[in-house]
C-alpha cells in the first residue's frame, strides 16, 4: 500500500515573464515504511519536490496523494490535520519558532492536537537526543546542530506516518551529521514511519531502500 503518490507533477516558476520549469512531469510512489533518498545537484529541484509532495506548496500540474487522499488543490486549513499528525518535516534551515523555547517548539504540534502528555513526550524526545539541558533555550541560543535536532524532535512528536527531511545534515560537520542521521533512522524504524530524505551523502544513500536522482526536472532511479 502506498503512503505517498505523485502523478506527473510539474512545477513552473515565472520570473520576469520567463517560465522556468523546475520539475517536469515527475511521478513517484512510496510504500509504507520505505526509506527513500532523493539526490541531485544543487538547484536541481529537490527542495521544490519535497515541498510539493508534502503539501507545503501546490504543483503547477499533476496530483499528489497522501495516505490515498488527493491533497492537490486542498486549502491550507484542509491541509492542517495532515501537517499536524500525518506528516513530519525537518527543514534544511530548521525553522524553529523564535519566540518559543526548545521544549515549547517540540511540544507545539502535540499541543495543537490537545495531547495532555505533550510536555512529557517532548522531554522524552529531548532526552533521547541528549538535549535535556537545552530545554529552556530559545532558538537563538542554540547551535545549528542543536537546532536541527530540536526540529527533528518536533517533527516526530506526533508520530507521523510520513517524515520528510531536507538535507538535515547540510549544516553539520560529518561527525555530527552521522549522529543526527542515525538518530533519524532509529526514530523512523521505531515508529514504523516512512522517510523521504534529501541528501548528497552517498553513505546514507547506501543505507536506504531506494535512491532517486533529480536531473533536468526529471526523476530517475
Amino acid at each position, binding site marked *: 500500500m502506498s503512503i505517498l503518490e505523485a502523478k506527473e507533477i510539474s512545477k513552473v516558476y515565472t520570473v520576469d515573464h520567463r517560465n522556468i520549469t523546475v520539475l517536469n512531469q515527475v511521478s513517484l510512489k512510496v510504500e509504507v515504511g520505505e526509506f527513500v533518498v532523493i539526490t541531485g545537484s544543487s538547484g536541481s529541484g529537490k527542495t521544490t519536490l519535497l*515541498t510539493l509532495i508534502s503539501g*507545503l*506548496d501546490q504543483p503547477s500540474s499533476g496530483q499528489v496523494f497522501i495516505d490515498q487522499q488527493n491533497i492537490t488543490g486542498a486549502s*491550507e*486549513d484542509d491541509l*492542517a*490535520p*495532515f*501537517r*499536524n*499528525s500525518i506528516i513530519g*518535516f525537518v*527543514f534544511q*534551515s*530548521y*525553522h*524553529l*519558532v*523564535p*519566540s*518559543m523555547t526548545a521544549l515549547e517548539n517540540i511540544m*507545539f*504540534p502535540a*499541543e*495543537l492536537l490537545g495531547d495532555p502528555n505533550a510536555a512529557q513526550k517532548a522531554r522524552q524526545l529531548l532526552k533521547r537526543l541528549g538535549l535535556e539541558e537545552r530545554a529552556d533555550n*530559545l*532558538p*537563538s541560543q542554540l547551535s*545549528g546542530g542543536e*537546532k536541527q535536532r530540536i526540529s527533528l524532535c*518536533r517533527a516526530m512528536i*506526533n508520530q507521523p506516518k510520513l517524515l520528510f527531511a531536507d538535507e538535515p545534515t547540510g*549544516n553539520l560537520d560529518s561527525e555530527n551529521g552521522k549522529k543526527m542521521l542515525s538518530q533519524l533512522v532509529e526514530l523512523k524504524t521505531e515508529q514504523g514511519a516512512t522517510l523521504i530524505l534529501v541528501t548528497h551523502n552517498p553513505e546514507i544513500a547506501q543505507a536506504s531502500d531506494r535512491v532517486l536522482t533529480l536531473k533536468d526536472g526529471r526523476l530517475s532511479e
Partner: protein
Amino acid sequence: MIHTHFIIRQLSRSSKQAVVFILCIILSLSTLTAFTGFSKSVNRSLLDDAKKLHAADIIIRTYDKMSDGLEKAVAEQVRLGRVELARFYEFNSVVRAPDKQKSLLSRLKVVEKGYPFYGEVVLLSGLSFHDVLTPGHVVVEKTLLDRLGLSVGDPIKVGFTTLTIGDVVLSEPDRPMNFFSFGPRVFISSQDLNALGLLQTGSRIRTVYLLKSKDDAQTDALTNLFKQAAIRGQERVNTYQTAGSRIKRFLDNFIFFLKLVGIFILIIAGVGIHGTLTAFLKEKEQTIAIMKTIGATNRHITLHFMLIVFLLSLIGTVMGILVGTVLQRGLAGLLADFLPPDLRLSIVWSGVFENIVIGFSVVAMFTFIPLYRLREMRPVMILREETPRSAKRWPLYASGAMFALFFFGLVFWHMQDFRFGLYFVAGVGGLILITYLCTHLMLWILKGWKSRQLVVRQAIKGLFRQGGATKTIIITLTASLSVIFSIYLIEKNLDATFIRSYPEGAPNMIILDIQPSQKEAFTQMLDQKVRFYPLIRARILAINGETIKHDSERRRRRDNLSRVFNLTYQNSLLEYEKIIKGKGLFRKDWTEPQVSILDIVGDMRKMGIGDTIRFKIQGVPLEARISSIRTRIKESLTPFFYFVLQEKTLGAAPQTVFSTLRMENDKIGPLQTKIVNRFPNISVIDVSSAVQVFGRLLKRLSKIIRGFSILSMAAGVLILISAVFATRAQRITESVYYKILGAKKTFVFRVFTLENIFIGLLSGFLALIVSQVVAFLVCRSVFEIPYHLYLTSCLLMIGATLLLIITIGVISTKSILERKPITYLREQPDG
C-alpha cells in the same frame, strides 16, 4: 554618494509603514495647525476688530450708578471736545404683545444716538439703525417676533409703555448673535428710557459709557484720567484693547482646551512616529546587516535612512498643514454661533512656520533613537534572529531628556501660564507614570499565568514579542481613552445635574425685581402663599479691617471677593441649610450688626465666628460680625445666600424682592404674562426653559470637544496599526510555523485576536479607572456637582473600544493570515 534608487526601493518595499508614518505626522501637524492657526487668527481678528467689537475707543462699565466723580470727568472731556459720548443700558425685562396675551423675557439695550461708534447694527430692511430707532420705536431680534406672534409695525409693551416695532436686527457689532443669552435682543432709544419706568434701584442694570476719542494718540491718557476718577472695583475703565469681553474669555478658555488636546495628540502621534519608524527599520534589518557585511559605512547607511525619514516627514508636514488649514475652517464653522460677526479667519504665516518647526522637531526627536540604533546593528544579525540590546543607554536618556524639555517648552509657550503649565505637565507625567506602573504590573501578572489553553498561552506570549511595544500601545491607548472617557463622564454628570434631573417640585420660575411695595398685591394676585427674599446689593470693603484688593481678587479663576454680592435678611434658617459653626443663626447677646455666612465663602478667605466684614451698600458702609457659618445640606435649586443679616440691620436699606414658584410647564407662559401685565417692572425667568437653552449649548460644545478628543483616539489607533507592522515579520513567522506544524487558520486568528483583546481590555480598564478619578475630581472640585459613576456606559465604551481594536487587529493581520507558508519559507535565511 546618494543612491536615489536605493531610497525609492526601500520606500516602495515598505509602502504601508511609510503611509502610517506619514499619517502620524499629518495627524499631529494638522491638529496643531488647526488649533494654533484658529487661535492666532481669532486673537488677531479680535485685536484688529477690537474697536468694532467694543464699538468704541474707551469703554466704561458699571453695574452701579455711575459715580459723580467719573460722571464729571467724562462730562468735562466731552465739553472740551476731546471725546464723544454714547451711553447704553442693558438689562432683562419681560416684554408683552398687547392683545395676544403672550410675553417673553428679553435682553433690553437702551442706546443713545452715537451708538455704535465703530461697526454697525445691521437691520433686515437695510435701513440705517438710527433712522429706524427713533423715540417710540424698538428694533428686535427675529426670534422675538416669532415667539410673540408679532410682526414689524405692531405695538409691543415694554415696562410701563407701549412702543412700535420698527425693524428686525440681524447683527450688532459688540455681541455674537447666539451668544449665551436667555432672551432675544430689544433695542430701545434712550429717549424712551424714563417712560419704561424700569430703572428702579436694585434691578441689575449694566451701564456702559462708550467714548470715541477725537485724537487716537490721546486715548491712553484719557483712559488713565478716567481711571483715576473711577471707583475701583465698581467702575471699569478700559480701552478697546484692554477691555476683555465675554466672547474673548469664552474663546480663550476654549482655545486653551484645544491646545491641550493638540499637545496631547502631538505626543501620542510622536509615539506613533517612533513605532512606525522602528517597524520600518526592523524590516530593513536584513538589508542593513548585509549592507554592512559587504562594507557599507554607518555614515552611508544612516544618511540614506535619514533622507528617507526626511522625505516622508516633508510629505507629512506639507499635507498636515494643508489638512490643518481645512480643519481650521471647519472649526470656525462649528463655532460660528460663538464668534463675533464677520470674524475674518486668515492663514497666519508665522503660525505655519512655527508649526513646521514644531513638526520637524517632533519627528527629529522621535526618530532619533531608531536611526541611532542603525549604528549598533551588527552583521551577525543575518545569522541570529535576536536584536542585540543596545549597549549604550545614554542616547536613550539624552533623547528622553530632550523630549521632556521640548514638551515643557511647548506647554509653557502655549499656556503662557507657568503654574498651570507645571500642573499640566505634572498631571500628564503622573498619568503616564501610573499607567506605566499599572501596565507593568498587569503584564507581569499575565506573564505568570500558566493557562491550560494553548491559544491563551500563545496570545500572552505574543504580548511579550520583541519590538512589540505592548507597553507603549497600552499606555498610549489608555491615555487617549482616558481623555475621551473623562470628557464623556463629565458631560454626563453635568447633563444629569443641570439638565435632565430638574428636581421634582423644585421652583422653576424666578420672579425678580419685585418692589417691596408690590409684595402684598403680588401675593393676592397669585392667590397662594409666596415666600419673598429681600435682595440688597453690596460689595465687601474689608474683612477684619483688611481691605479687599481688587486686582489680586480678580485674578482668581473662580469666585472672588471683589464682585457684587446679594445680601438678604432672614430671621430663620433657609430650607436645606444647617449651621455648622456658631450657636443659632444670630447671637442674642451681641448688639452690633451680625452676619451669617455660607461655608463656601470660606474658600475665598478663611473666616471664623467673631470676624468682621465691612460691606458697602449703596455707598453706605456697614460693619457686621460673623455670628454663624452655614452649609447647604443638599444640592437643590432653592435660593441660597452667601450673607444673611438681620431684618433690623437691613430692613430699611434700598432693596428689591424676589420669589420663586413652582408651576406646571404649560402654565408658566400665561402666568408670566399675567404678572407682567399687572407689574411691568417685574422680570420672570422661566428656569426650565433657561436650563434647556443651557443644555443645548452644552451639548453643542461637548460635541465639538468630543470630536477633537476622538482625534487623539485616531492617534492611538495609528499606534496600534504601527505596532502590528512593527511585529509583522514576527507575526508572519509565527503564523507560518503554526501552519506548517498543522495549525488551522482559525487557531492563528484566535491567537492574534486574543492578544488584541488583552491589549484592549487592559487599556480599557486602566482608562476607566483613570477617567473615573479625573472626572470625579473635575465634577467635585471644579463644577461642584454630585458625581455618578455611569458604569454601564463605561462598560459599553470599553466594549466599543475592544471592538475597534479587534477590528483593526483583524484588518491589519489579514494579509499575514493569507500568506502561503512556502513563499515565506523561501525568503527565510537560515534560522
